[in-house]
C-alpha cells in the first residue's frame, strides 16, 4: 500500500530489514502424500543481526533456514508465503535470479563439512569458486581474500593451508574452512545449519569463536540453526524457538533465557539440569568388571595403551573423552569384538576369553550393549516382538505365552504401550522409541552389566533426557551396572557414580564423580569441563577472555 508520498520513512525501515518471511508454508512428501511441515512462519532479520533458530528434529528449523536461500530440499516444496531478501521475493523469483544471489549475497554453511566439501579438490579452489563463478573477483583476488579469511578464522598456516585437500585437515579446521568458503564473496546473509553439532566440545569452541568473531568483523547478518540452546545463546542477538513447524516463542536472547513465556522453552532451558547423587561402591564386593592393563590395536595402529579400570556392582562408570580417545574401542575389547594385544578382562572375578566367539552363552548374556545409533542397531525388517523376543528364547528358552507376557512386561517397563507397539516394525518408531526398544532388548537378556555407547548423542536433548531417566530408574529397580561411554559432560553429571577421563587411548584421570568435578582438575579434564556451553550468553566471551592468548597462540 505504499504511495510515493511516504517514501521517506518507509525507505529507512526497508533498508534496515534484510530478510523478511511472511506466512511461510512448506510441504514435505511423506508416504506419497504432501504434508505441511512449516505452518505459516513470519521471520524478520535486520542487517548485521544474528538470529538463532532453535528446536528439536522435525521442528522445521533447517527447512526454514534453507528457505532463506529460496531453496527447498528434495521432497519439500514452498507452498505459501513470501520470502523477501533485500526487496526480492525469492519464492516467486525465477531460478536464475536465485542462483545469482546464492553464494554471492546469501551463503550456507552445512552441518557436516566433511560431507559438504568435495574430497577431490583443494580447499582454496573450493573457497574461490563462488566469487570467481559469480564474476565478483579474479582467481588471484579471491585466493588472496581466502588466505586473509583463513587468518581471521585462526586456521594454522593461513597462506598454505588452502592447498591441502579436505581429508588433510581436522574436522574443526574443515568446518572453519567452510565458513571461509561461505564468507568468500562477502555475503549479506549466512545460514549456519548446525555448524558445530558434529564436533567435540573442545573443537566446538574454536568454531563458535571463529564464527562469532568473523560475523562481527564483516557485520554480516546470519541465521544460526541449532538444537542446542546453550550454543545459540552465545551466538545470537535474537532467538526463535520452533516446534513442529510452528513458532513457539521469539525474543532477544537475554530476555528469552531469563523470562521464557512458554512451557516448552522452559523445558529446553532446563534440559541439562538432570543430576544424580553419586554413590560410593559397596565395600567388600568384587567389581562386576575389571579391565586390567589392556593394550589394543587395529592392525598396526595402537588405540589403547595400558588401560585399567573397574566397574563396581550396581554403579555407573562414565568413560569420557573426545572422538578418537579410544573409549568405544574399550567397549569393543570388553565385549570381545576386538581381542586385546595384552591385558585381560575379568568378569565377576574370573577372566573372560578375549574373543567373543570363545565365550559361553551365559557369559555373553551377562554383558549387554546398547549402541549409539538406534537406527542401525535394529533390523529394519523385524517387528518389535521379534527384537525383544529373540534374547528371551535364545538365552532363557522362553516360548509361547510366557515369552509373549515377558515381552509385554518389558515394553511396559520402557514406558511404551504394549498393545500399540508390539506389532510395529522397527522402522515405524521414532529415534527415542527405537533406543527404548534397544534398552528392552538388552534387559530381555537379564544382564548384570550394560555397556551404553553414546546412547543419547543421536537423540534430541529432551528425548535423550527421558532415556537417561529411564536408565537410572532401571538401575535402581534391577541393580544393574552401567559402563557409560559419552563425550557429553552433562550426561556424565546426570548419570555417573565414577568417571574415567580418556585421551589418545590413555586414562588421564579417574575417580568418583564428585572428585572429578571438583577442582583441582587435571589439565585436560579442566579443558573438557570448561568447554561445555552454558546457557549464559556471556559464557563464550568470558571463556575466550580467560583462555586469551593461550588459545590464540596454539592456533588450533
Amino acid at each position, binding site marked *: 500500500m505504499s504511495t510515493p508520498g511516504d517514501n521517506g520513512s518507509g525507505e529507512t525501515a526497508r533498508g534496515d530489514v534484510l530478510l523478511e518471511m511472511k506466512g511461510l508454508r512448506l510441504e514435505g512428501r511423506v508416504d506419497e502424500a504432501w504434508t505441511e511441515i512449516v505452518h505459516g512462519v513470519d521471520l524478520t532479520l535486520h542487517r548485521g543481526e544474528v538470529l538463532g533458530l532453535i528446536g528439536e528434529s522435525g521442528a522445521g528449523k533447517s527447512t526454514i533456514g534453507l528457505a532463506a536461500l529460496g531453496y527447498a530440499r*528434495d*521432497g519439500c516444496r514452498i507452498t505459501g508465503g513470501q520470502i523477501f531478501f533485500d526487496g526480492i521475493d525469492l519464492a516467486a523469483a525465477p531460478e536464475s535470479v536465485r542462483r545469482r544471489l546464492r553464494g554471492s549475497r546469501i551463503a550456507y554453511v552445512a552441518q557436516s563439512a566433511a560431507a559438504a566439501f568435495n574430497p577431490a579438490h583443494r580447499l582454496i579452489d573450493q573457497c574461490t569458486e563462488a566469487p570467481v563463478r559469480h564474476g565478483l573477483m579474479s582467481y588471484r583476488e579471491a585466493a588472496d581474500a581466502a588466505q586473509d579469511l583463513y587468518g581471521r578464522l585462526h586456521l594454522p598456516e593461513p597462506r598454505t593451508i588452502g592447498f591441502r585437500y579436505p581429508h588433510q585437515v581436522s574436522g574443526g579446521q574443515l568446518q572453519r574452512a567452510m565458513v571461509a568458503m561461505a564468507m568468500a564473496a562477502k555475503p549479506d546473509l549466512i545460514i549456519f545449519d548446525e555448524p558445530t553439532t558434529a564436533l567435540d566440545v573442545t573443537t566446538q569452541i574454536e568454531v563458535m569463536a571463529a564464527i562469532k568473531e568473523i560475523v562481527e568483523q564483516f557485520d554480516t547478518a546470519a541465521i544460526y540453526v541449532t538444537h542446542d540452546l546453550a550454543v545459540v545463546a552465545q551466538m545470537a542477538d535474537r532467538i526463535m524457538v520452533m516446534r513442529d513447524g510452528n513458532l513457539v516463542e521469539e525474543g532477544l536472547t537475554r530476555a528469552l533465557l531469563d523470562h521464557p513465556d512458554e512451557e516448552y522453552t522452559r523445558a529446553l532451558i532446563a534440559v541439562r539440569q538432570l543430576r544424580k547423587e553419586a554413590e560410593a561402591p559397596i565395600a567388600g564386593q568384587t567389581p562386576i568388571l575389571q579391565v586390567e592393563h589392556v593394550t589394543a590395536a587395529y592392525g598396526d595402529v595402537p588405540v589403547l595403551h595400558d588401560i585399567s579400570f573397574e566397574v563396581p556392582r550396581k554403579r555407573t562408570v562414565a568413560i569420557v573423552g573426545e572422538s578418537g580417545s579410544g573409549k568405544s574401542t574399550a567397549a569393543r575389547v570388553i565385549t570381545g569384538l576386538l581381542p586385546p594385544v595384552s591385558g585381560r578382562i575379568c568378569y565377576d572375578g574370573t577372566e573372560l576369553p578375549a574373543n567373543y566367539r570363545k565365550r559361553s552363552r551365559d557369559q*555373553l548374556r551377562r554383558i549387554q550393549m546398547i549402541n549409539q545409533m538406534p537406527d542401525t542397531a535394529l*533390523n*529394519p525388517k523385524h517387528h518389535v516382538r521379534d527384537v525383544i523376543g529373540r534374547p528371551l528364547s535364545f538365552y532363557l528358552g522362553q516360548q509361547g505365552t510366557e515369552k509373549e507376557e515377558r515381552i509385554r512386561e518389558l515394553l511396559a517397563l520402557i514406558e511404551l504401550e504394549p498393545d500399540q507397539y508390539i506389532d510395529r516394525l522397527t522402522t515405524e518408531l521414532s529415534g527415542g522409541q527405537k533406543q527404548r526398544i534397544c534398552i528392552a532388548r538388552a534387559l530381555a537378556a537379564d544382564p548384570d552389566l550394560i555397556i551404553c555407547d553414546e546412547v543419547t548423542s543421536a537423540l534430541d536433548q529432551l528425548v535423550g533426557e527421558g532415556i537417561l531417566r529411564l536408565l537410572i530408574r532401571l538401575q535402581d529397580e534391577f541393580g544393574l551396572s552401567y559402563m557409560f561411554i559419552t563425550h557429553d559432560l552433562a550426561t556424565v553429571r546426570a548419570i555417573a557414580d565414577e568417571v574415567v577421563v580418556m585421551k589418545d587411548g590413555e586414562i588421564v584421570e579417574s575417580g568418583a564423580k564428585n572428585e572429578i568435578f571438583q577442582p583441582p582438575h587435571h589439565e585436560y579434564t579442566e579443558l573438557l569441563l570448561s568447554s561445555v556451553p552454558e546457557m549464559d550468553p556471556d559464557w563464550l566471551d568470558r571463556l575466550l577472555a580467560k583462555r586469551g592468548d593461550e588459545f590464540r597462540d596454539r592456533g588450533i
Partner: protein
Amino acid sequence: MKPIQTLRKTRKVFRTAPPTAWFGMTVILIVLIAGLFAPIVAPYGETEIVGAPGLTIGGHFLFGTDQIGRDILSRVIFGARNTVGIAFITTILAFSLGLVTGLLAAVLGRWADQLLSRIVDILMAIPSLIFALLILTMTGTSIVNMVLVIAVLESTRVYRLTRAVGMNVGVLDFVEVAKLRGEGLWWIIRHEMLPNIATPLAAEFGLRFCFVFLFISALSFLGLGIQPPTADWGSMVRENATLISFGLPTPLVPAAAIALLTVSVNFVVDWFLYQTSGLKD
C-alpha cells in the same frame, strides 16, 4: 485382521501399477498359459508337418509355416514351454549357487571370500558365450549339460551382487548385536541379512532370467542348445533364417517372441524395484 490388511495393500499396489507393468504382466501370463497348456492351446503338433514349406503370415496358418512346412504358431507355443521352462530352471539354479556362495563370502570374509572371489574372477574373465561353447563342445550338447554350464556362468553375476549388498548389511550394528548375542552363522544369514537384501536380489532375478533366456536362445541359434526337432525360439530363428532371403517375414515371429518376453520381464522388474526401493521420491 492381518491377512486382510495385507490383501488390501496388495490390491492397492496392483491398482496403482503403471501401464507398462500391466503390459508386462499380461505378456508373462499369456506365455505361462501357452507353455503350461501347449498341447491344448496349439492348433497343431510340435513336429507335425501340416502344409507346404515357407507359407507367409496371414494365410490359413496365422504365422505361416517354416522351412519344412510345420505350423510356426504351434511351434512358438511349444517353444514357450521348452525355452522359458529351461530358462526358469537354469535361473533358479544360478541363483541358489550365487546366493549361497555370495552370502558365505560376505559373512565369513577373509580366506573364504578370497577363494570364492578369485574363482569367480577367473570364470568372469573368459567371455561367457565362448566359455559355454568350449565346455559344451567338450562335454557334448545335452540339455542337462547346457543348464549346468549356464547356471554356473550366470551364478558368478549373482555372487557379485549378493556379496556386495551382503557386505553392506553385514557391517550394520544389528548384525554385530546378533553376533554378540552368540547367534550362529546360519541364523544371522537367514534372519538378519536375507530380509534386508531381498529387494535387489528379486530385481536381479528378473534381469538374470532375461539374460539366461537370451543365452539359451543364442546357444540354440549357434546349434549347441536345444536340439531339433524340439521347438525352441532361438533355434527356430536359425532354422528359418534362410527364408528371409525369399522376402518372408516368418523368421521374425520367434525373434519377436524373444524380444517381447524380455521387454515384458524388464517392465515388471522396473515396477517392482520402484515399489520396494526409495525410488518413489
